[in-house]
């Protein structure tokens, strides 16, 4: 197909967190995006969550900026309340037809004010709150919904006409008809998410019969500040706060009887999270979690699990609950279960069923319309090496639709799918996008400050502690404040419109928002005031949530006083704010990839496909990394063949320069302008860096006779022997968690359980009579990998569970290996004498990580893996712009996940490399030359070598300072050191900070009595 036939637009189907990420990446790298969502608003499942594990971040707080960014992005068209009808054409050039169901409200007129819903007489159950609350027949899904447009529920509306009368914007259109639409796109990404398992199908747990048995997603809403009881944990039958809460795991997962054999992968962690939050909500709540295997396999998940046990006192019972009965008098619930062989009964006030994930209801319809295949479980089919590709070329997939998965893996895949979608149509980049136009900036330099203050309730996050109305009232009394108001959510889309409107109405030339932290929300509000014609730097924030209402929850009076002080300080700084100009940085459109394993090669190849010149540096002599030693994949695919074909492709790609057997010596520079030197002397310039340095298998230090008896080996060593046919004997014991989940290395290495299944199955395939034992603590074959656990068991592999604290004892008896282990189920000691003892050794960071991290100024975890910018929503980014991480360097994971992350880094890097220039921060150092006498004290304080003492052009006898603003990072170290006050940090000037200090201490000064 000719390049001109390619269409520079992508359709993303499904507006959950996955679709948002894909859409934002693509729109930020030169493609037009149509985001098609079946519901009236985007946000998906994540918008319903109260908190997220393992950081307990508030889900809406971290998601809202992405929701708003998507809603306001000028290159993303939202098509909500819509279904896809037909997809014609082929990769690069599709024609999509669809239908947009009637909202019965004119989207162009509705302001989202909600007065219609207040007057609507019809109440019905609220799906967003999982029917724990009511909504009206005219409604929005949730308060922060994007787009914030009301719609009429055709099933419930009685057509009384009250809403139409009430609507001042004349937006209600009862007779609105559904609309057909047709769009032309080059690639398609499907990310419709998942549905929850219907717990009614597990009749023995009484869901739908007993009022106090709720599903985990219902409980999530009960926990939420925006839920039915504003975050108070009340049980449905009588509104009592339950003391004992039982969580039952694997409801609709790992359960042949209901037809779902797979593990849903997320329920263990979300139950721990819900238990922790429930406990935080009230001191007397005692959660107990009934589980089969605790699958805390992700990055730092095990530590979260440990904290739940040790710090929160949450109880864990290893048992599949047999049945639940209600005491009809108290409405309490009696659980029947077997623990360590003994039948038990226990009474609880509330039961939470950890429902699994199943394919979305419309999966089959979608697969037929789009013509791609589903797998046996009804999820979208993908390949071991193609985790984001469907069976139809040009149609890609991400998120829980291809397999149950958590948010970080979903977000990485969403970026990965965006990379594949973009590669397909790379030649049509920048053909259909428009540049964001802001109104001309108002010159405020001669104006008296006119400050607007917006104080956020954040639901009840702030308002439940701080008296927000009195803070707003107080703000009005401050000098130069001409307007102040309070908002339910200052970050919601409607408030952004309100802010712009108020800037206009009151001629505001400074804006202060008192809400959460500037670290997450400043860019959002800065963009808003830019849209209102103000310079972004005329914005200031007061953090009255994270650093006030949340940390002084039991002192409302003191918290309110503090909030007022913080607002006064922000206003004091705001008064002195000036417009700043963002510098333009030229972008070198080449990339550096460090590490030539699967993740690095996948990234390099995909960048090359998009026309980027790539430098790929690998410290070993051969490309391939860990995969070369893996030999077997559980799916039966050959990893060595795969990685060798990648290496061949890399070697023959004209866009990729390979440096094997080479190490990085130094990396200097900043986003768009890095310069790297190798130890062997080669130099290269590039705009972004992808870290894909991999990891290594732990080599046990004498533990379990490793290195002392030739029959003891690690899993990778065993697979190598197996491949070469060098394995001796016919009995095998595998010990799990060697060097993982223990002191010093508290987290799970994620891959060893499945790796063990793969090896055990291979052994059994070769010799069905082989005696194979697996000694484990929890089997963590999450997702579809559960089938390998089942297969191993069916092939006769014996599983013996040992207690966390009692490791198996291994002794050398005259050259023979003897393993003693206490079987937790029976309490009896088992003695094994295997010919082969295989240690499922954990994953350790790559040796070079500690040297590389400081070169890039990026952090590593205490275990030595690279630490991403945000565990949930920025899984492959670093806080340092232009630097990304993929694969094992980020933490243990499977090949498909590495490939997903490798592709994800490409998508993230292309948001930089697709442009010739970037806008830099404006908060750089600024010199008042009249005050500088060229003393040079500042020069050594600059870590970026941005400062130089030069002769003064005006007076040759004098010296002065030259600042290279391209190198300046805006730390202000030089400013703090300058003895003459000649240096200023823009946005953090001496005057501004002093004004804040003075404002903070205003009432201290009033009481001042100087004692001499």
């Amino acid at each position: 197909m000719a390049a001109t036939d390619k269409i520079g637009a992508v359709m993303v189907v499904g507006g959950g967190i996955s679709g948002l990420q894909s859409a934002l990446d693509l729109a930020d790298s030169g493609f037009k995006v149509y985001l098609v969502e079946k519901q009236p608003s985007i946000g998906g499942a994540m918008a319903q969550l109260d908190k997220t594990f393992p950081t307990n971040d508030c889900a809406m707080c971290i998601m809202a900026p992405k929701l708003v960014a998507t809603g306001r992005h000028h290159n993303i068209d939202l098509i909500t309340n819509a279904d896809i009808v037909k997809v014609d054409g082929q990769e690069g050039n599709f024609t999509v037809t669809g239908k947009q169901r009637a909202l019965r409200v004119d989207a162009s007129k509705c302001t989202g004010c909600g007065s219609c819903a207040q007057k609507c007489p019809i109440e019905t159950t609220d799906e967003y709150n999982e029917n724990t609350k009511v909504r009206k027949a005219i409604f929005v899904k949730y308060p922060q919904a994007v787009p914030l447009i009301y719609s009429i529920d055709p099933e419930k509306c009685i057509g009384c006409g009250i809403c139409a009368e009430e609507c001042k914007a004349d937006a209600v259109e009862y007779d609105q008809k559904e609309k057909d639409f047709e769009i032309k796109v080059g690639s398609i990404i499907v990310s419709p998410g998942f549905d929850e398992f219907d717990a009614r199908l597990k009749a023995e747990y009484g869901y739908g019969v007993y009022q106090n048995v709720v599903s985990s997603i219902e409980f999530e809403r009960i926990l939420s500040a925006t839920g039915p009881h504003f975050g108070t944990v009340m049980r449905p039958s009588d509104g009592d706060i339950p003391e004992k809460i039982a969580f039952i795991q694997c409801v609709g997962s790992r359960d042949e009887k209901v037809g779902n054999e797979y593990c849903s992968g997320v329920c263990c962690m979300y139950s721990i999270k819900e238990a922790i939050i429930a406990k935080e909500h009230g001191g007397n709540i005692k959660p107990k979690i009934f589980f089969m295997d605790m699958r805390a396999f992700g990055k730092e998940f095990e530590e979260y699990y440990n904290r739940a046990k040790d710090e929160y006192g949450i109880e864990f019972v290893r048992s599949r609950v047999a049945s639940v009965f209600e005491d009809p008098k108290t409405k309490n619930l009696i659980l029947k279960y077997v623990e360590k062989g003994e039948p038990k009964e226990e009474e609880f006030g509330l039961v939470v069923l950890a429902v699994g994930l199943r394919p979305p209801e419309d999966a089959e319809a979608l697969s037929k319309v789009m013509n791609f295949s589903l797998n046996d479980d009804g999820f979208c089919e993908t390949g071991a090496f193609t985790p984001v590709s469907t069976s139809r070329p040009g149609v890609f997939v991400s998120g829980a639709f291809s397999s149950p998965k958590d948010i970080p893996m979903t977000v990485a895949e969403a970026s990965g799918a965006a990379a594949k979608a973009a590669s397909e149509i790379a030649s049509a980049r920048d053909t259909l996008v428009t540049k964001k136009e802001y109104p001309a900036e108002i010159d405020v330099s001669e104006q008296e400050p006119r400050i607007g203050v917006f104080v956020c309730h954040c639901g009840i996050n702030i308002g439940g502690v701080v008296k927000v109305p009195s803070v707003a009232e107080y703000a009005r009394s401050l000098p130069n404040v001409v307007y102040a108001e309070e908002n339910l959510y200052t970050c919601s889309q409607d408030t952004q419109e309100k802010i712009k409107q108020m800037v206009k109405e009151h001629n505001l030339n400074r804006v202060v928002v008192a809400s959460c932290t500037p670290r997450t929300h400043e860019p959002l509000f800065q963009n808003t005031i830019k849209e209102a014609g103000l310079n972004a730097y005329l914005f200031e924030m007061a953090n009255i949530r994270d650093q006030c209402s949340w940390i002084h929850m039991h002192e409302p009076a003191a918290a309110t006083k503090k909030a007022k002080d913080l607002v006064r300080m922000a206003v004091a700084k705001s008064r002195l704010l000036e417009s700043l100009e963002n510098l333009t940085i030229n972008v070198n459109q080449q990339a550096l990839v460090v590490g030539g394993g699967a993740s690095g090669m996948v990234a390099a190849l995909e960048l090359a496909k998009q026309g980027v010149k790539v430098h790929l540096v690998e410290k070993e002599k051969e490309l391939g990394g860990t995969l070369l030693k893996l030999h077997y994949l559980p799916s039966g695919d050959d990893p060595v063949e795969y990685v060798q074909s990648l290496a061949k492709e890399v070697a023959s790609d004209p866009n990729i320069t390979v440096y094997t057997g080479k190490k990085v010596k130094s990396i200097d520079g900043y986003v768009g302008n890095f310069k790297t030197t190798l130890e062997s002397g080669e130099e290269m310039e590039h705009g972004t860096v992808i870290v894909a340095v991999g990891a290594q298998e732990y080599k046990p230090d004498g533990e379990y006779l490793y290195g002392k008896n030739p029959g003891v080996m690690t899993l990778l060593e065993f697979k190598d022997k197996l491949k070469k046919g060098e394995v001796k004997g016919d009995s095998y014991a595998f010990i799990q968690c060697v060097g993982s989940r223990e002191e010093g290395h508290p987290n799970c290495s994620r891959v060893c359980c499945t790796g063990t299944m793969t090896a055990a199955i291979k052994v059994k395939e070769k010799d069905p009579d082989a005696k194979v034992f697996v000694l484990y603590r929890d089997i963590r074959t999450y997702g579809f990998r559960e089938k390998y656990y089942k297969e191993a068991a069916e092939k006769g592999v014996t599983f013996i569970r040992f207690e966390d604290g009692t490791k198996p004892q291994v002794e050398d008896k005259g050259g023979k290996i003897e393993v003693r282990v206490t079987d937790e189920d029976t309490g009896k000691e088992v003695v094994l004498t295997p010919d082969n003892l295989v240690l499922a050794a954990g994953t350790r960071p790559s040796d070079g990580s500690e040297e590389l991290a400081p070169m890039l100024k990026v952090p590593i975890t205490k275990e030595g893996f690279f630490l991403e910018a945000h565990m949930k929503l920025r899984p492959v980014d670093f806080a340092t712009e232009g630097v990304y991480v993929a694969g094992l360097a980020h933490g243990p994971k499977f090949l498909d996940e590495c490939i997903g992350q490798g592709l994800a880094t490409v998508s993230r890097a292309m948001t930089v490399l697709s442009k010739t220039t970037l806008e830099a921060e404006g908060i750089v150092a600024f010199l008042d030359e009249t005050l500088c006498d060229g003393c040079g004290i500042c020069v050594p304080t600059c870590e970026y070598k941005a400062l130089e003492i030069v002769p003064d052009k005006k007076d040759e006898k004098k010296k002065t300072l030259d600042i290279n603003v391209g190198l300046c990072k805006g730390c202000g170290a030089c400013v703090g050191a300058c003895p003459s006050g000649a240096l200023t940090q823009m946005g953090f000037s001496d005057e501004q900070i002093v004004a804040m200090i003075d404002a903070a201490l205003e009432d201290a000064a009033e009481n001042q009595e100087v004692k001499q």
Partner: protein
Amino acid sequence: MSSTTPSAQSEEKAEGEDFEPKIIVFCCNWCSYAGADLAGVSRMQMPPHFRVIRVMCSARVDPEFVLRAIQKGADGVLVAGCHPADCHYIGGNYRTRRRIALLRILLQQFGYDPDRLRLEWISAGEGEKFQKTMVEFTKTIEEIGPSPMRGGD
């Protein structure tokens, strides 16, 4: 959240202490400010007598800022930055360390208890350390008493 809204507290007068310390906290944007946010996200409770001023790097904290705060009646000043070797700006925190050491000597020479000024390293992951630091520092200041600028000695 029922536990968050205890009733019957007067709006203007905070709970029963005669001396309400005034503490200014300078936090760097990348580590300690994030650590303070994390303390909030984790709902770690602490005394409400401090006010945080965000700077990009602890090295931005000009000695003048500390002296200004003391002059205006602050009973204590805390400067919080990234851990050594962890500074987002490579080595800004080392300069801060030297500056604070000198400033403490200076304060003492002017008759102030040098413990009114404290430096702490708090990472983005150390919400708990932020909490502990605030609890302890508040206690220290309560023990030292009001600043001479506010009538203490």
